[in-house]
C-alpha cells in the first residue's frame, strides 16, 4: 500500500543541471503566509527560477455566490481580504447598488469612505508588521499589533466584530455610529501617529533594514503594468495610479489627499509607500469627520424597499411591511438583470467585482478581480536573480492575502 501523501501540484521544472538544487518553500511556511508554495531552483543561494503555486486557500467563493442571496453574501465577501474587510463589503455593496441603480445617502457615503480608510490603515499596519517580523524586527511587530488591536476593538464597538464585520448593507450600512465613537477615533488616530513614529524611528534608517530592502525585489512601472499590478505595488514603482484619484467613487472627490509614489519599485519603496498611505488615510479620516458633521447628517440607509428593511414598528404593525421584511430576508433583494464591473481601490490595489444578474434572488455569476492573485502572477519577476533570503522580505512586501488571492 502506497502510504505516501499525494502531491497537489505539478512543478513546472526540475533541476536544470547538476549544480542547481530545487527547493520547495511552503505552503506551510511563515514567509508565504501559509498558503503559497514557491518551488525555487537555486544555484548556491541565488534564485534562478521560481514556480509559484497558490490556491491552497481556494474556498469556492465564486461557487458559493451562486447558491446564496445577494444579501447573504456579505459575510463571504468580508473574508476575501480579511485584513481590510470593510473595503470588500463596500465594494460589493456598491456593485449591487449599481445594478439596482440605487444612490446611497450622503451620510452613508461619508461613513463608508471613513471606514474604508480606517480599514486600509489596519491592513497596511498588518502588512508592515508581518513583513518586519519576518525580518526579525519583533518590536515593530508588537507596536503595530498593539495599535491595530485598538482599531479592532473600536470597530467592534461599531459593528460587533473585530475582524470580519459584515457591516455593509445593500443601500446603506448595518447601523449608525454609537455615541462617543468619533471622539475615540480621534484618540486612536493620535496614538497611531505616535506608534508609527516609533516604527519609523526603529526601521527607516536602520542599516540592516536598508541592506535587506533597498534594491531587492525591484520592478519597474512599465513592467508592473504589464503584469497587471495596481495599488501600492504599482505606486512604489513610480506610477501615480490610484483609483480614488483617477476615477473617484464614494466621497473621494471631496477629499484632499496625496498619492505617495515610490522611486524604483523595490521592497523599501513598497514599505515606505504603505507607511505614507497610512498617513494619508489618517488625514482623510480627519477631513471626513468634519464632513460628517457638516454635510453628513441624515439617514444611513436609502429609503428603497427593494433592499432596505422597513422600520421595525411598521413590520409589527402592518402586513405590507411584514411581507416586505419577510421577502427581503428569505428571498433577498431583487436585482434587475444586467452585468456590471465595479472596481474600488482596496488596500492591495484594484479590487473588482464582475456581477451578472438574471433578475433572481442571488447572483448568476460573481467574479472577483483580486489584486493579490494578479500580483502572484508577476511575483516571479521580483524573486528571480535575487538571493534565497531575499524571498522573505519581497514576499512580505507584496501583502499577499490568501483569502483574496485564492477566493
Amino acid at each position: 500500500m502506497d502510504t505516501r501523501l499525494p502531491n497537489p501540484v505539478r512543478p513546472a521544472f526540475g533541476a536544470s543541471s547538476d549544480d542547481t538544487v530545487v527547493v520547495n518553500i511552503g505552503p506551510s511556511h511563515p514567509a508565504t503566509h501559509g498558503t503559497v508554495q514557491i518551488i525555487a531552483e537555486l544555484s548556491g543561494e541565488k534564485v534562478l527560477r521560481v514556480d509559484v503555486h497558490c490556491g491552497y486557500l481556494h474556498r469556492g467563493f465564486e461557487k458559493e455566490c451562486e447558491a446564496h442571496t445577494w444579501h447573504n453574501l456579505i459575510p463571504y465577501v468580508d473574508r476575501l481580504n480579511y485584513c481590510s474587510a470593510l473595503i470588500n463589503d463596500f465594494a460589493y455593496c456598491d456593485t449591487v447598488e449599481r445594478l439596482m441603480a440605487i444612490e446611497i445617502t450622503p451620510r452613508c457615503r461619508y461613513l463608508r469612505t471613513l471606514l474604508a480608510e480606517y480599514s486600509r490603515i489596519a491592513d497596511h499596519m498588518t502588512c508592515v508588521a508581518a513583513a518586519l517580523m519576518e525580518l526579525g524586527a519583533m518590536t515593530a511587530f508588537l507596536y503595530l499589533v498593539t495599535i491595530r488591536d485598538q482599531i479592532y476593538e473600536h470597530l467592534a464597538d461599531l459593528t460587533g466584530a473585530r475582524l470580519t464585520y459584515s457591516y455593509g448593507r445593500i443601500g446603506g450600512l448595518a447601523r449608525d455610529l454609537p455615541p462617543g465613537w468619533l471622539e475615540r477615533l480621534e484618540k486612536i488616530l493620535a496614538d497611531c501617529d505616535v506608534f508609527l513614529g516609533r516604527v519609523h524611528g526603529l526601521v527607516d534608517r536602520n542599516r540592516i533594514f536598508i541592506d535587506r530592502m533597498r534594491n531587492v525585489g525591484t520592478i519597474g512601472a512599465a513592467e508592473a503594468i504589464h503584469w497587471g499590478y495596481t495599488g501600492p505595488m504599482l505606486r512604489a514603482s513610480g506610477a501615480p495610479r490610484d483609483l480614488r484619484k483617477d476615477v473617484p467613487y464614494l466621497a473621494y472627490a471631496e477629499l484632499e489627499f496625496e498619492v505617495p509614489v515610490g522611486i524604483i519599485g523595490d521592497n523599501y519603496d513598497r514599505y515606505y509607500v504603505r507607511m505614507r498611505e497610512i498617513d494619508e488615510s489618517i488625514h482623510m479620516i480627519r477631513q471626513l469627520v468634519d464632513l460628517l458633521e457638516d454635510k453628513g447628517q441624515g439617514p444611513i440607509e436609502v429609503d428603497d424597499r427593494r433592499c432596505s428593511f422597513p422600520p421595525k414598528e411598521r413590520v409589527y404593525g402592518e402586513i405590507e411591511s411584514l411581507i416586505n421584511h419577510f421577502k427581503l430576508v428569505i428571498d433577498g433583494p431583487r436585482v434587475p438583470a444586467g452585468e456590471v464591473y465595479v472596481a474600488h481601490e482596496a488596500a492591495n490595489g484594484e479590487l473588482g467585482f464582475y456581477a451578472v444578474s438574471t433578475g433572481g434572488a442571488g447572483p448568476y455569476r460573481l467574479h472577483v478581480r483580486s489584486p493579490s492573485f494578479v500580483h502572484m502572477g508577476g511575483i516571479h519577476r521580483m524573486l528571480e536573480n535575487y538571493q534565497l533570503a531575499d524571498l522573505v522580505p519581497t514576499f512580505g512586501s507584496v501583502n499577499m492575502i490568501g483569502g483574496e488571492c485564492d477566493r
Partner: protein
Amino acid sequence: MDDSRVIPIAPAGGAAPGRSAAFEYIATRKDELIGWARKFSLFPYPFVTACCAMEFMAVSGSPYDTDRFGAALPRFSPRQADLLMVVGTITHKQAPVLLKVWEQMCEPKWVLAFGVCATSGGFYNNYATVQGVDRLLPVDVYVPGCPPRPEMVIDGILRLQEKIAGQKHPILTRDF
C-alpha cells in the same frame, strides 16, 4: 489513526491487576509532574491559512499574550513543536500538507482546531473545503468562532492545559 497515545486513567477503587498501589501512586505523581511541565511549555506550530491568522497574531501580542501561559514561542518546524494549531480553513489542496506536518511531529503532540473552519468547515460547504480538520487528524480542543475572540482562544488553551494535566504521560516505558 492511533488513539493509544491517550490512555484512560485507571478506574477508581484499586490498582490495575499486576501492579501495586505504590507503583500506581508513583505513576500518578509522575504524570502530574510531567503534565504540569508539558502544559506550561507548549510550542505551537501555527498552521496558519486564513482570517483566523489575524486573531492568532492578536492573541500572541499584547494585551492578550499567550506568553503568560507558556504557549507563545512558535516553532515553524514540526520536529520542534508539540501543539499543532490549525488556524483557518483547510482546503482539499492543503490537506496532504497538513497531514504531512502532523505526521512529522513527535509524540506527545496535541491539535487545537482554531476557528470554525478548522472545526467543521465553517460556512464553506463546497467542493474545495474539508468539513473540519477532524476528518484528517484527531483534534484535542475545538475553538469555534469566525474568528474567535482572543479570549476564546485563551480559554481553549486553558482547556487544553487541563486536558494535558489529566493525561497519562508515559516517559520510560509504554506504561510508565
